């Protein structure tokens, strides 16, 4: 057997490592949870890490998974070893090419982190709905159940595909396996060389398309031959299972790890057998082994090769004693009489079973979208099988009170797998380094002991203030538990943030005699009374030892600022006893050194100091024998909230979503809006305070607030009398508003994230103390919270100002409109959300939103809550997300529906005119001729339609009923198509282009962060030259695509390039003009993002630098102006006034390149500097072209084309 070594990695890294070693070309596209595979491959290639044969694989990012699949197809046909990584919708986009690749018997492996396909909702979590959707493509399907198997099967798949010529989808469960960190045995290169047959590779290359030996491949065939040709591949599929098994045997001989197509585990004389595929099989194995030790006659069959499905191998693997079988599918096929694996097993048995009596087979669904699948659930299935009439088509893991499909299980059931395992659970904040410290701990233990390790990480849906829960296991035996640490099981529970005490019942997880570690500013002597009463009782009852440390104080004292990760890690090692203390501390120090290296020596010093200081500050708490006080966990949602909010939204917020029964869920995926307001997160350490003596009422603070927590209202001064003490208001300034009105700027304290951008933008300083502004951040104390809560409640009760009376062309005026997008969970200081909020203020009460998948769909629509909300009249944006790739088309569909129904309504109106108006009436005429170009007109039309509805009530005809159902479309609706640059520049560009060309009245808002932000900052075509992003680790060598210019080329598209932090009024004008323009409008909005490597506190400054350097010129192109004989293009920013270097030096995405490749950085900077100067020069020329109607032979596009030619010539000359 070859030498091998243990490594501690996750499933994605395991797959990517083999893929990178055994391929020449890898096409990639980001999609969760598969993105890390592409990132690893890209990183290795960018470091010039070669494959098995000594050459560095070429990594190519495409514009979509469809593009990646097409490229693979071409590369394979030209003879290269090629692979890709994907999941979910990405795999679905590859299906057309998969049919071709398989149809042409082309060897390749697609590594898939299996994930739910979006249906009633998008979900990024694991199940088999994607691979099942692709199962008819002709690809083989090989399922790996654990990170070890991922590495092993990646290799087996590669070898088997080359030998059999059948392409393989090698899949493993998204997150559960792709992101689970485990200690696995790596495969030495010499073993890989022995498994991959050189002859097979040569054969593959020989089949390549080549002009040296040309063939025609991919022909078009007629009815006479297609069928026969399609059947010609059958022998390959017949041989495939044997090939896979042979390679598995060969692999076993080299590594000692034996796999089988169908692998049986359990009693040789089992009467009940479970058949399952994927990570759930690990849990099932643990359970079966436990139950068999108890004397049960049970068995488990793991399905490894799902396609081609070898029925004989399946039956051979089953014990002859089997009487009952349960087949579990991790997918749902609505309308089918069973899911795919179940039906395959049924048909296999029906066709090939030779035993005396056919076993009874039931099928069930489990684990959709990573729903927990525990030993208790496995046992429940065996128990069900024991029943005389076992339930078929069951579900397990949920409570189905609608069709009663679910099986009950006993949550308290445990296997003996963890009798000697150490289980630890840690509650932290996403930004406090808890997860990275835990990953570090896993590696330390995995690499410095013989123990097996497992790490899995659970997050909430938010990007600001996200809560992380780390589940770590360490044991002497292999760990098969592909489920979370359950109640009563954790030997160690750590709370890294004291605020969690009032939010989570953390000690539910604690086992008897567990250790609880708490980071708290309270001294050990006084900690007891700060714990909720129930927690105190649990500590007493379970004999839990409690330790506490003021980690933030240690961090401050040792120069670590707010970073507590190594401090808490040191506490864990010193009190858990998992390693000898000194050895553990040395290991942490070694890990710190390894992380920061010699280059980060100062950081190493600070960390060492913190580690050394930690033990002095760690104290054990004396546990009294009784509880003190009556602190309790706070329920987030008040009892007076609507029923649905309490029973569903509130339960999800409280972390009890698993317990919500089927009956409470909307059947079509529709949820109420306005729910973010219920989720009071109290994240801020400081909140803004207004000094009304200084406030100029400019309205900039509500404009820039990314979370919609600072609002302005004007109201009758009489209402001030009923305000709570401390409520601030002032007489309104300016001529636009009547006297006797008061104005207030009020903060929603519990929703503020404390980002400070409102204070940053505030232009008013105290003349005698410039550090004091009209708005200032002050400490968010308990007292302030109570005061501002009552102020906020009063503010909400104040009437909204009449929309039609508001001057929406001014910042001050537009900010009086209620934001119908509030309290999103986007990153603190997000650069995208102010744009969305602005649109919701201006047009929200008549807005339909098509939202591309990405950051904006996650902070916009990820349960439990949504920031999209409605006004007092119940009107507000109606929001939906279709896919990533089709958002423009989705929005266009909305516009088509509105227009068609409006036209139909008008037809009906005319038809019913006499009934509605009689001889004297005007209503029909007024509705038909309504001018809705301003808010007043829109309101009048709403009133008319309300009158129409009343009249229709008394008209008895089918036409009247029809009109009632479409009458709302007689009022103007505003269709917004919103998404990021990944969508607009890349995957959705084809659709976007088509929608712009359609001339239809839609508003397209591109939130341009210049990377795929949501999936972790991968390069898009919006990424600027010289930026270091994922998939462009060496700095993007090509310039940013000029989307605005492409759109302007259509001439009938309103185009605006905006950056609110640089020029807010231009942004406001652009939004108003885009909506006013009755054709397609495109607003490309500069959106600073954490991916830029900036502190978002500097969001506005970065926007100004982007504009002043010429990186982001501000302009508007209004086709209406051309009709009036004016140049449609107007430049709103001045020529670049600062060197480009000055902008990029402030962002890590750019300046990182100077530290890694200074010469490349300089070269790219020089080119970028030229880019921005040329671009501005070009726009300047376009904007200064004379534009009159006297020359009909010179239509606008000609002028643009000519200008373009001139500039190109000039640019060319300059370059020369």
């Amino acid at each position, binding site marked *: 057997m070859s030498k091998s070594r243990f490594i501690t990695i996750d499933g994605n890294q395991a797959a990517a490592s083999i893929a990178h070693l055994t391929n020449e070309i890898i096409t990639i596209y980001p999609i969760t949870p598969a993105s890390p595979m592409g990132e690893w491959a890209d990183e290795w290639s960018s470091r010039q890490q070669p494959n098995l044969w000594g050459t560095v694989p070429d990594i190519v990012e495409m514009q979509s998974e469809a593009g990646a699949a097409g490229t693979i197809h071409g590369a394979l046909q030209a003879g290269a070893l090629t692979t890709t990584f994907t999941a979910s919708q990405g795999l679905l986009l590859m299906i057309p090419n998969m049919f071709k690749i398989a149809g042409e018997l082309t060897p390749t492996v697609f590594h898939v982190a299996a994930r739910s396909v979006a249906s009633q909702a998008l979900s990024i979590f694991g199940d088999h709905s994607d691979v099942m959707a692709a199962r008819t493509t002709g690809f083989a399907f090989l399922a790996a159940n654990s990170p070890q198997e991922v590495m092993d099967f990646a290799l087996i798949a590669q070898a088997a595909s080359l030998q059999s010529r059948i392409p393989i989808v090698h899949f493993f469960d998204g997150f559960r396996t792709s992101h689970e960190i485990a200690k696995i045995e790596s495969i030495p290169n010499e073993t890989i060389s022995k498994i991959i047959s050189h002859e097979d590779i040569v054969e593959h290359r020989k089949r390549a398309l080549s002009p040296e030996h040309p063939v025609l491949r991919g022909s078009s065939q007629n009815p006479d031959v297609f069928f026969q040709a399609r059947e010609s591949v059958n022998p390959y599929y017949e041989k495939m299972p044997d090939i896979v098994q042979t390679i598995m045997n060969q692999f076993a001989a080299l590594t000692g790890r034996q796999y089988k197509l169908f692998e049986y585990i359990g009693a040789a004389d089992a009467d009940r057998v479970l058949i399952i595929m994927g990570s759930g099989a690990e849990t099932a194995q643990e359970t079966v082994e436990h139950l068999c030790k108890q004397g049960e006659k049970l068995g488990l069959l793991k399905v490894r090769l799902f396609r081609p499905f070898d029925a004989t191998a399946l039956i051979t693997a089953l014990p002859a004693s089997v009487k009952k079988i349960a087949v579990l599918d991790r997918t749902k096929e609505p309308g089918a009489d069973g899911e795919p694996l179940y039906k395959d097993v049924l048909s296999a048995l029906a066709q090939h079973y030779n035993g005396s009596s056919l076993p009874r087979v039931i099928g069930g669904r489990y684990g959709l979208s990573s729903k927990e699948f525990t030993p208790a659930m496995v046992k429940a299935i065996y128990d069900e099988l024991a029943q005389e009439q076992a339930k078929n088509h069951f579900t397990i893991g949920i409570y189905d009170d609608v069709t009663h499909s679910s099986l009950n299980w006993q949550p308290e059931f445990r296997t003996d797998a963890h009798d000697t395992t150490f289980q630890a659970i840690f509650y932290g904040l996403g930004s406090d380094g808890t997860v990275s410290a835990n990953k570090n701990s896993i590696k330390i233990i995995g690499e410095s002991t013989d123990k097996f390790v497992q790490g899995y990480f659970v997050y909430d849906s938010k990007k600001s203030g996200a809560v*992380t829960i780390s589940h770590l296991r360490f044991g002497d035996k292999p760990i098969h538990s592909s489920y979370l640490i359950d109640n009563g099981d954790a030997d160690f529970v750590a709370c890294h943030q004291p605020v969690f005490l009032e939010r989570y019942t953390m000690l539910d997880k604690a086992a008897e005699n567990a250790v609880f570690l708490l980071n708290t500013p309270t001294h050990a002597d006084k900690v007891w009374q700060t714990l909720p009463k129930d927690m105190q009782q649990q500590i007493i009852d379970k004999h839990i030892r409690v330790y506490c440390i003021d980690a933030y104080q240690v961090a401050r004292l040792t120069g670590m600022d707010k970073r507590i990760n190594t401090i808490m890690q040191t506490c864990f090692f010193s009190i858990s006893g998992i390693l000898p203390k000194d050895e553990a501390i040395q290991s942490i120090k070694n890990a710190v050194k390894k992380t920061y290296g010699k280059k980060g020596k100062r950081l190493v010093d600070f960390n060492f100091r913190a580690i050394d200081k930690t033990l002095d500050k760690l104290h054990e708490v004396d546990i009294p024998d009784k509880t003190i006080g009556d602190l309790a966990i706070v329920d987030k949602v008040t009892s007076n909230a609507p029923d649905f909010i309490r029973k569903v939204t509130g339960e999800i917020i409280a972390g009890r979503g698993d317990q919500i029964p089927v009956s409470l869920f909307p059947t079509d995926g529709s949820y109420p809006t306005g729910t973010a307001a219920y989720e009071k997160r109290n994240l801020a350490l400081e909140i803004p305070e207004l000094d009304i003596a200084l406030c100029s009422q400019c309205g900039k603070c509500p404009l820039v607030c990314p979370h919609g927590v600072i609002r302005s209202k004007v109201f009758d001064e009489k209402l001030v009398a009923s305000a709570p003490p401390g409520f601030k208001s002032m007489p309104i300034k300016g001529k636009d508003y009547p006297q006797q009105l008061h104005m207030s700027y009020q903060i929603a304290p519990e929703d503020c994230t404390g980002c400070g951008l409102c204070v940053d933008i505030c232009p008013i300083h105290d003349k005698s103390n410039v550090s004091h502004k009209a708005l200032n951040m002050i400490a968010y104390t308990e007292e302030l919270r109570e005061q501002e809560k009552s102020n906020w409640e009063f503010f909400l009760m104040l009437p909204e100002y009449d929309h039609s009376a508001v001057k929406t062309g001014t910042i001050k005026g537009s900010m009086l409109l209620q934001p119908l997008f509030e309290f999103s969970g986007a990153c603190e200081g997000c650069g995208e959300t102010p744009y969305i909020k602005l649109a919701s203020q201006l047009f929200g009460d008549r807005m339909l939103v098509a939202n591309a998948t990405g950051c904006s769909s996650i902070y916009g629509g990820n349960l439990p809550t949504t920031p999209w909300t409605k006004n007092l009249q119940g009107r507000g944006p109606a929001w939906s997300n279709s896919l990533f790739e089709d958002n423009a088309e989705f929005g266009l569909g909305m516009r088509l529906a509105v227009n068609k129904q409006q036209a139909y309504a008008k037809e009906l109106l005319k038809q019913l005119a006499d009934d509605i108006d009689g001889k004297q009436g005007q209503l029909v005429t007024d509705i038909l001729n309504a001018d809705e170009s301003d808010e007043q007109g829109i309101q009048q039309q709403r009133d008319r339609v309300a009158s129409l509805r009343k009249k229709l009530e008394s008209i008895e005809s089918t036409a009247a009923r029809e009109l009632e159902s479409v009458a709302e479309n007689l009022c103007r609706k505003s269709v917004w198509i919103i998404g990021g640059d990944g969508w607009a520049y890349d995957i959705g560009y084809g659709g976007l282009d088509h929608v712009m060309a359609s001339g239809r009245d839609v508003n397209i808002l591109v939130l341009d962060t210049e990377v795929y932000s949501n999936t972790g900052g991968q390069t898009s075509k919006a990424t600027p030259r010289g930026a270091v992003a994922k998939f462009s680790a060496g700095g993007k060598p090509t310039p940013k695509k000029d989307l605005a210019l492409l759109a302007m080329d259509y001439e009938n598209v309103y185009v605006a390039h905006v950056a609110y932090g640089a020029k807010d009024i231009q942004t406001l004008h652009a939004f108003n003009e885009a909506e006013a323009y009755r054709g397609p409008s495109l607003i490309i909005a500069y959106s600073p993002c954490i991916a830029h490597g900036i502190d978002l506190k500097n969001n506005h400054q970065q926007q100004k630098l982007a504009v002043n350097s010429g990186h982001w010129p501000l302009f508007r192109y209004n086709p209406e102006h051309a009709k009036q004989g004016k140049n449609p293009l107007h430049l709103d920013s001045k020529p670049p006034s600062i060197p480009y270097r000055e902008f990029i030096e402030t962002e890590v995405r750019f300046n990182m390149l100077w530290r890694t490749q200074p010469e490349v950085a300089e070269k790219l900077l020089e080119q970028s500097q030229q880019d921005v100067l040329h671009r501005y020069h070009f726009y300047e020329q376009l904007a200064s072209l004379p534009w009159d109607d006297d020359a009909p032979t010179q239509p606008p596009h000609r002028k643009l084309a000519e200008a373009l030619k001139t500039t190109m010539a000039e640019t060319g000359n300059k370059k020369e």
Partner: protein
Amino acid sequence: MIDLSTTYLGLKLLNPLIPSSSPLTGNMDDAKRLQDAGASALILPSLFEEVVHHEQKQLEKYVHLQALGHYEAESYRPVPDDYAGEWDSYLQTIQNLKSDLDIPVIASLNGISSSGWTDFAIDMQQAGADALELNVYYVAADPLQTGEEVENRYVQLLTELREQINIPITMKLTSQFSSVGNVVNKLQQAGANGAVLFNRFYQPDIDLETLKLKPKIDLSNPIESLLRIRWIALLRGRVDLSLAATGGFHNNESIIKALLAGADAVYLCSVLLEKGPAYYAELLQQLAHWLEEHEYESIAQMQGSVSQQCAIDPATFEHNNYFDVIRNY
């Protein structure tokens, strides 16, 4: 042939003109040009511990600790395998200059923490620096801090460093001590090999539009040289360490005056930034010419010849000279 050589910090130099800390001395091309122009040594730009500290914190935040706690992304930018930080680059620069140049290379350091000073200094010595200049650059902003406490900072720092490294150390000082001479004396006793008179501080400026502060550095003015010349003259012969004049030496006249006053070396900065490295040769030539014209045989012969101890009217260096100045205005 006139002997232009001098001894500074125990280093035998070809001439007393030393290009001091500036962007020119930190890059190989300009450094070579300076050597070609006759430069006798180089003072590297200062390595500021504060800058290194800031950079490392930024790297930690934006590279090592990127996670937000979001399922779809554990990081937002690739983590480079290797990168060159300020510190590495500085040490690399010392090594490169040492291997490619023949003249002594003097490193310059500004620390903020005790460990910062010593760690950096040790590394600089290991990288091959011939001497170390401590650019203490301390603004005593706290009104409760006494002058003695400030002076003790310098002495203590030097004492600690002296124990750690054995290459010559020179102290770049501010003119704002109550008793410059006493400070230099104390530093000499604590092991300093030289004193550089005087540092020029970046001064914060107020932007009249934004009312925000912004740091500002102006190139020196020739008039500033007189303060340096005066103090060199006062100290020459009274202290036993090397003296260098820096700040405002733009022309031959001021250089000669500094040497006459007793400087072992004269630092050049603004003049080279303004006129380029090649101007060094011109200044050197002018110096040689003046010496020749005035029949000096060597620099050593003239050095300190107009110090306070040797001056015709020594009291003038000490007096306020109000009388003469006002009368002649």
